[in-house]
């Protein structure tokens, strides 16, 4: 990935967490609607980015029916577990709404895909996808959730499901809930003790004690650097 793209995706990724849809999502409450503007909610935006984010947040792309269908799909893709919430609980439908506006290339495949899915479920079960039973959902999804090169596989469905699965995963795992589910630890300042002993063991490797002694001095890691008047480092 190009470094510029990765910068951009870092921004977009960190934005994924708790976006609030104004007005049109079924689950939107009054207090959600008065959510603070993005400038106060997120760190590190330039003025131009804030203006753009706020503009996108004010626009609506999906209809309520589409958002409900997306929510149904999100929770089929990542239902809650004993220890983690579901994709809807993590705010993924709002994330997908935002991404469709941020990257308009997503709009047509998502909108067309939802219609395709509804027409499949109408044909099979005489009802909209979002109203189907769990067994009916399973039957419909099993046809499109496993990319097979097989004459009977409905390719438009596979394409659509791949897209919505990708967006659901990315929305979920860039949210606080998803990061916790992944057990991402991050880089904790001033607590680097090397790769933990048990991890090294798992891979049959170990640190060379001589090098470890040279590279890691835990006794000084909380010292603040000091310089003398001539600019020489004295700590």
């Amino acid at each position: 990935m190009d470094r510029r793209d990765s910068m951009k995706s870092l921004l977009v990724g960190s934005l994924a967490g708790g976006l609030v849809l104004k007005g049109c999502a079924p689950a939107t409450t009054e207090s959600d609607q008065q959510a603070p503007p993005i400038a106060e909610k997120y760190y590190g935006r330039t003025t131009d980015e804030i203006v753009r984010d706020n503009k996108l947040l004010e626009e609506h792309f999906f209809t309520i029916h589409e958002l409900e269908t997306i929510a149904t799909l999100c929770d089929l893709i990542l239902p809650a577990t004993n220890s983690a919430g579901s994709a809807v609980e993590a705010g993924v439908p709002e994330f997908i709404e935002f991404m469709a506006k941020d990257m308009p290339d997503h709009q047509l495949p998502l909108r067309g895909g939802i219609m395709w899915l509804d027409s499949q479920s109408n044909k099979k079960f005489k009802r909209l996808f979002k109203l189907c039973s769990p067994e009916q959902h399973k039957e419909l999804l099993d046809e499109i959730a496993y990319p097979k090169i097989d004459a009977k596989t409905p390719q438009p469905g596979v394409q659509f499901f791949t897209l919505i699965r990708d967006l659901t995963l990315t929305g979920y795992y860039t949210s606080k809930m998803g990061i916790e589910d992944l057990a991402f630890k991050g880089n904790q300042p001033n607590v680097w003790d090397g790769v933990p002993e048990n991890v090294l063991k798992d891979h049959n490797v170990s640190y060379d004690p001589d090098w470890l002694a040279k590279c890691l001095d835990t006794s000084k890691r909380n010292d603040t650097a000091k310089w003398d008047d001539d600019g020489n480092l004295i700590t």
Partner: protein
Amino acid sequence: MVKEVTTNSEGLATGISYINKVDRKEYALKAKTVVLAASACSSARILLNSKSSQHPNGLGNGSDMIGRYLHDSTGSSRTFFIPDLMNRKTYNEDGVGGMHIYSPWWLDNKKLDFPRGYHIEVWGGLNMPSYGFGFGASDLNKYIGGTVGGYGDKLREDVKKFYGSVMGVSGRGECIARKDNYCEIDPTTVDEWGIPVLRFNYTWSDHERKQARHMHNTFEEIMYNVGGVALGEKPGAEKDYGLLNPGRIIHEVGTTRMGNDPRTSVVNQYQQMHEVKNVFVVDGGPFVSQADKNPTWTILALSWRTSEHIINQVKQQNI
């Protein structure tokens, strides 16, 4: 936004003219010495746009060298899946984003079929998820006999199973600077400030193509030895061995090259223009070559040296 360097009847710089971006008006600044640091291409642009009767080909461009010998690092990459790194325990790390492996000219570079050399950068690990995380999350199952696709708990497990198991390797090398790789003023296009912009003429030669081929063979050799599975196709000759377009590694240098001979270079050893002694260029423009490494520290070192030289020259009243 600097438009041009202004000159007097002797062809020496008298200052600059610039556009104030707030009121969109043009202003002039007077100066005894002008130091350009607009980055390699932009300084070349300013100089080429500074035409006068003494400098009809652009300021200090009697040699016709300004804009020439433009070069960027080479870049080509591949990714590998490392099955040994499946089901990782997470701990205090957030991945590696391009660590340089020390690889000086591949030992004896006489054995290579291309000049100079390159280094390898590795990336991967337990990175913080950002947009794109989880795309194709279950695809790697095809390498271990698992089921590709799905949803629900199975998918959640796939995400964790493969988290941190993909590594990337990128080659970054020296491109041989050539006279016929250059930027010049585009005669038909201006920017929003009315200032003519640059256009670029740049091709890779066999030096870079052979280097990139060597990179890919080396990537595979290293990564197969750590048990990796290569992802995607190995780019062949038809794709210039995966060389990214010139400019993509963002290390553009060379446009105001340094040298002793005013016929083949733009600035002297102190980054002072041969033809205009009170103009200096302190960005990547004076690089004659940039080795395989990122340029910023060398830009800093050279501009430091130039600053000391300017102070000395001012003290001696030479400029």
